């Protein structure tokens, strides 16, 4: 899978060229939870419908990490929303000055962009706005907490817990950093501000690590290498090295590195895997690069 924009082609076939979409299956009833509606959700929708030939409809909860286009673009192509019997709840954050969630996600379904209008969807769809929240009961023993991440628009991390197992998402995000001037010789430097900026950023990053502490699986933004990240500060994404170190500090069992750069080739990811996923790399967390269609059993 890739971040930002679908990148199909020979160089992305192994890890996949679609944008973000994760499927969780929970409990004995195989409850369907979907995280993000990137272009990957099209194939998921097709397979869900194929599995359910009886009444041609599904029940699912879709959680959007945020509403940047690469995370919602697949929604109009998610076939179950056109099925009259489907019951779908779409959860997600919206940014302070933006429209209601329904308009942001459904705004893609206007005749100027797409042949079907939002109002024409036949299934039962509910849109639920989420904020930072330490406990949301999703029913049947499934619990959720959400955490505000650091991205140019409001982006939420999700922590799902069911029967003692924990799956966390932490994307799109980059580590909080000290935004204030730190060079004592630069104009406008203020020592107290510089120190507090540092303190706050460190604390906010610790809070995020506590959020995914002990997770059985953490799916974390890892768009850049550390070297690339130095040139892409404030773009809202994390480096592979940082994600691995943070997961280890938080005692995460498995780490899926996610949101690969659209220009990253499979060969490069294979090279990275040799280094970062090698048991000799520091830390106890099991690390792998997320791949389209990959299944992780917990």
């Amino acid at each position, binding site marked *: 899978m890739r971040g930002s924009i679908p990148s199909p082609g020979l160089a992305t076939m192994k890890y996949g060229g679609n944008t973000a979409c994760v499927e969780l299956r929970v409990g004995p009833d195989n409850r369907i939870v979907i995280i993000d509606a990137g272009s990957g959700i099209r194939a998921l929708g097709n397979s869900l419908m194929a599995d359910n030939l009886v009444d041609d409809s599904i029940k699912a909860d879709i959680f959007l990490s945020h509403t940047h286009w690469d995370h919602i673009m697949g929604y109009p192509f998610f076939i179950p929303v056109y099925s009259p019997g489907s019951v779908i709840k779409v959860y997600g954050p919206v940014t302070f000055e933006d429209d209601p969630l329904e308009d942001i996600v459904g705004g893609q379904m206007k005749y100027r962009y797409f042949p079907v209008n939002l109002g024409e969807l036949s299934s039962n769809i509910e849109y639920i706005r989420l*904020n*930072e929240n330490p406990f949301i009961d999703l029913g049947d023993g499934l619990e959720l907490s959400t955490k505000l991440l650091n991205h*140019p628009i409001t982006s939420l991390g999700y922590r799902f817990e069911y029967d003692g197992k924990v799956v966390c998402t932490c994307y799109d995000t980059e580590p909080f950093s000290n*935004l*204030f001037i730190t060079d004592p010789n630069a104009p*406008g*430097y203020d020592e107290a501000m510089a120190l507090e900026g540092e303190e706050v950023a460190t604390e*906010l990053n610790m809070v995020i690590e506590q959020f995914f502490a002990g997770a059985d699986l953490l799916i974390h933004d890892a768009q850049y290498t550390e070297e690339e990240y130095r040139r892409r500060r404030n773009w809202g994404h994390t480096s592979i090295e940082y994600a691995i170190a943070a997961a280890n500090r938080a005692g995460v069992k498995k780490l899926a590195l996610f949101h690969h750069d659209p220009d990253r080739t499979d060969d490069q990811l294979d090279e990275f895997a040799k280094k970062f996923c090698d048991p000799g790399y520091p830390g106890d967390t099991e690390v792998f690069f997320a791949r389209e269609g990959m299944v992780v059993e917990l």
Partner: protein
Amino acid sequence: MEFNKEKQRENIESFIRKMPSLSTTVGKVMEICSRTDASPNELNKVISLDPILAGQVLKLINSAYYSLINKVTSLTRAITMLGMNTVKNIALSTAIIRTVSGVKKSRALPTAKFWEHSIGTGVSARLLGEVKGYSPMEREELFLAGLLHDLGKVPFGDEYIEVLNIAKQDQQSLIEVERDLIGIDHQEVGLMIAEKWKLNKVITECITTHHEIDRLDGGAGQQVALVALANIYTNILDHGYAGDPFPDEEDIARLLQLVDLSHDVFGTIGARVIDEIHKSELFLRT
């Protein structure tokens, strides 16, 4: 009924002389908000210099709207968590409303209703600017211009109650009744404040010509027309109250023609106007 016009003008001039200058804080917040290269240090400093403003900004950030689990207790933290732009917007609107509302409580125009109208106009003007493809910075200017367009109504004394009554009874345009009875209208008074506060050209023109619909060519004509439309639209929505509830169909048609938009634009911005007004009015509750 007619008032002593000379006396009225004197009272208004004296009121404006006593009005505080746009405080250094607000002036600086406005300056920083209009610059794209301003640093977080500058924003932090300018807000911190004014402890009351700083308190109001933090109160808003901690309001239910964001639902942050941990309370934000410092500006440095607010800027780190929410970014420069959010903090800038909050500081600016808070500072301006406080400056103007602090001057006087008008009996004629209740403060909350007046600001509801002003915010409605600001929000609508910003959305119309978006439809017209204005840059984010120009849209913020439209918001400010809408927010401040009726500033000239603030200095009128209790006699203004009579002006409002007559405009309402006779379904006359407010500005004409002002001219008839008081001898000076809120655009002229607005100009005096704009000069005192050294507001920029676009905002000043919106304050001084938003009722001059027949001569809005050149200069900031397009922005003024957008603010004038936003003003009429907010009156039609019956949101807040600034005493001028009778829109003239011909004015609307002329304004729409000036900015090359059709009536449909109100449908386009409709739902968002209400939503944004609701959000922006957090400022009134501090």
